[in-house]
């Protein structure tokens, strides 16, 4: 109850100053277009409209890779939107350095973001030279293996509890005409799956050594060789997926045409939308059931500098609204992601989200690759892994060599 009243007070501080002001339209761009995502973003819009302003939805279809260039060119081209989604981390770094993004430090201090945002690395990713430039809205972790219970039942094997069991079950799935592992054709999916395998198999230290310290020797070493071996298994198991988008791949798991998928917790929104129940219809294995660590990347909203003063003021309101407790709960339940504040009540969370919250509470977290690597290095990695997954004649050794080269030149 204490929490509720606190929430009410916080909401009031947001709403009251605006009751007097007239409604202002803010255009918000994002790339949340799949069914579950659209439902989640509607919650944000509802919360913002409740402050007496108007959320003009600027959804850009086709995932971040398509949307980000459009957003960046609008901002650099002098036609900025009022707020825009980025993955927090380094995607908007240069825009901030060029002075195109609004400094949110005032709002952050007023709303006490430093205290409430957990883990604090989220806010660190928004901070450049001591100033805060973005509002984190959720935590997305990549390290999940989603399994279709129906598919394993059909193949006559038990639902695996970790990656090795899953690999062992692959032949049975294939015999039943099921693709063991769904990997969509978009390059980021293959690269992401590899990062997940790396955390699960090589562990946190190696992960940091490679991606944070950019240690090319470690990237060429035996630990990573094991990861490439696993990626080779994954490649074999993913043969015949033949879909592009991640949600189409998730849909293969939902319909039992594929055994599983390595995908971030945003996949959960799709399962929820299809009316499936965690534990009964599908199983989730954080950290592939091997190493229960999750990364804490996610989405954040950036607010470009606007000429219109009225709108600039309302940008602050939107920033505060995004982190308000009720917004956080409503949004993240629909999205399948975890809230950025540790003090909200997620009683309605399902089994998988609860697992995620536990891991988060235990502090078994790492930074996401978006936070550690520049977009340039990420893209090179995507090129490598999309080739690796599509081309069975590329040996794991060759791929590792190229991977080490990328890490050596990474910034």
């Amino acid at each position, binding site marked *: 109850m204490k929490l509720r009243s606190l929430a009410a007070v916080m909401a009031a501080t947001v709403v009251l100053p605006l009751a007097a002001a007239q409604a202002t339209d803010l255009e918000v761009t994002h790339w949340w277009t799949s069914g579950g995502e659209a439902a989640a973003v509607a919650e944000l819009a509802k919360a913002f409209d409740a402050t007496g302003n108007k959320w003009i939805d600027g959804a850009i279809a086709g995932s971040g890779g398509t949307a980000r*260039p459009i957003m960046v060119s609008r901002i650099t081209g002098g036609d900025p939107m009022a707020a825009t989604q980025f993955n927090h981390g380094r995607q908007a770094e240069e825009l901030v350095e060029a002075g195109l993004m609004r400094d949110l430090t005032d709002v952050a201090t007023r709303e006490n973001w430093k205290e409430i945002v957990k883990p604090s690395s989220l806010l660190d990713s928004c901070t450049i030279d001591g100033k805060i430039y973005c509002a984190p809205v959720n935590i997305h972790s990549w390290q999940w293996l989603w399994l279709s219970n129906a598919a394993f039942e059909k193949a006559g094997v038990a639902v695996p509890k970790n990656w090795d069991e899953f690999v062992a079950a692959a032949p049975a799935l294939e015999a039943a005409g099921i693709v063991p592992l769904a990997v969509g*054709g*978009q390059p980021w999916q293959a690269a992401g799956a590899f990062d997940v395998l790396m955390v699960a198999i090589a562990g946190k230290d190696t992960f940091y050594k490679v991606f944070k310290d950019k240690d090319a020797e470690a990237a060429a070493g035996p630990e990573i060789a094991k990861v490439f071996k696993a990626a080779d298994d994954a490649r074999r198991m993913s043969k015949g997926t033949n879909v592009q988008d991640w949600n189409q791949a998730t849909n293969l798991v939902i319909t039992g045409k594929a055994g599983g998928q390595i995908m971030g917790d945003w996949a959960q929104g799709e399962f929820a939308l299809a009316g499936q129940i965690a534990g009964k219809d599908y199983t989730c294995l954080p950290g592939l059931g091997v190493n229960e660590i999750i990364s804490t990347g996610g989405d954040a909203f950036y607010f470009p500098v606007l000429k219109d003063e009225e709108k600039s003021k309302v940008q602050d309101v939107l920033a505060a609204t995004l982190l308000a407790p009720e917004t956080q709960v409503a949004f993240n339940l629909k999205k399948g992601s975890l809230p950025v504040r540790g003090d909200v009540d997620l009683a309605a969370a399902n089994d998988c989200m609860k697992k995620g919250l536990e891991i988060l509470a235990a502090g078994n977290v790492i930074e996401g690759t978006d936070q550690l690597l*520049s*977009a*340039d290095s990420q*893209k*090179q990695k995507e090129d490598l892994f999309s080739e690796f997954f*599509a081309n069975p004649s590329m040996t794991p050794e060759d791929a590792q060599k190229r991977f080490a080269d990328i890490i050596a030149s990474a910034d």
Partner: protein
Amino acid sequence: MRGEFAYAMTRPERERQRFAPIDIKEETLMTSQADAGRPSRLLRNLSAKIASIPMMLTAVVIFLGGTLWTVVYSFTNSKLLPRLSYVGLDQYERLWAAPRWVVSIQNLAIYGFFTLVFSLVMGFVLAALMDQKIRFENTFRTIFLYPFALSFIVTGLVWQWILNPEFGIQSVVRSLGFTGFTFDPLYDSDIVIYGILIAGLWQGTGLVMCLLLAGLRGIDEDIWKAARVDGIPVWRTYLFIVIPMMRPVFITTLVIIASGIVRVYDLVVAQTSGGPGIASEVPAKYVYDYMFQAQNLGQGFAASTMMLVTVAIIIVPWAYLEFGGRRRG
């Protein structure tokens, strides 16, 4: 009558009409060299020259200026925003070391070669067939040209569905009873570029046909009569008399096809987004992806400069032979 008129003009005259902007440059050149006693040359068609100033400015400032800007910045390490800090040839070294770029160039070569050959051959054969005074010519012409009215994105999506193994040709043939039938070019790294080629040809051949048909109609009837009197078979008339006479039309067509090849991008995005893996990547897509997705302008500029150089390597010797030779003579 129409044929006679076309024939009454000498070839250089007709070409001069076609290449009007070049003509202006030539004229100014000639005037400056000519004696000062004839200022009227410069002032002739003054209003036409004034009217073309905006286009000339656009060409110089936007095309030429933009090109130079791109080349200059390709030697910098610009990331998301352009920055003048030079790194020499680093971007180019990285570019040619990137497997994806090499695959892109190979794909463009394959796509370019086959598009050129097939669209010219198929376009000409269709045009020649249409030229046989067939019935419903208008209807056929519309049908063949219709794909050209669709954008590459739509074309790509349509062919993505047609070539999709679960919904397209493969599934139709399998449902007829041939269960072993496999046809999934878009999901096979080795042949994916041919899947894109099919869509490109489907879209572009109609236009080539129309251009060549127009060229065929420009051939004087008397030539045909003379060939028939001499007893030359129809195919030889086409091959050795008509085609050489259609040279200007072929050159125009070639330029249109070639520019379509170099900039191929949307077709690939719609059909495969470069996949499977990087098997159907093309240079234009590399440029876009690295400029915007990877936020590495320097790399993107280096790649686009390489595209320009490639085009220049092909165009310059040809232009020299085509225009340089004539000026001497």
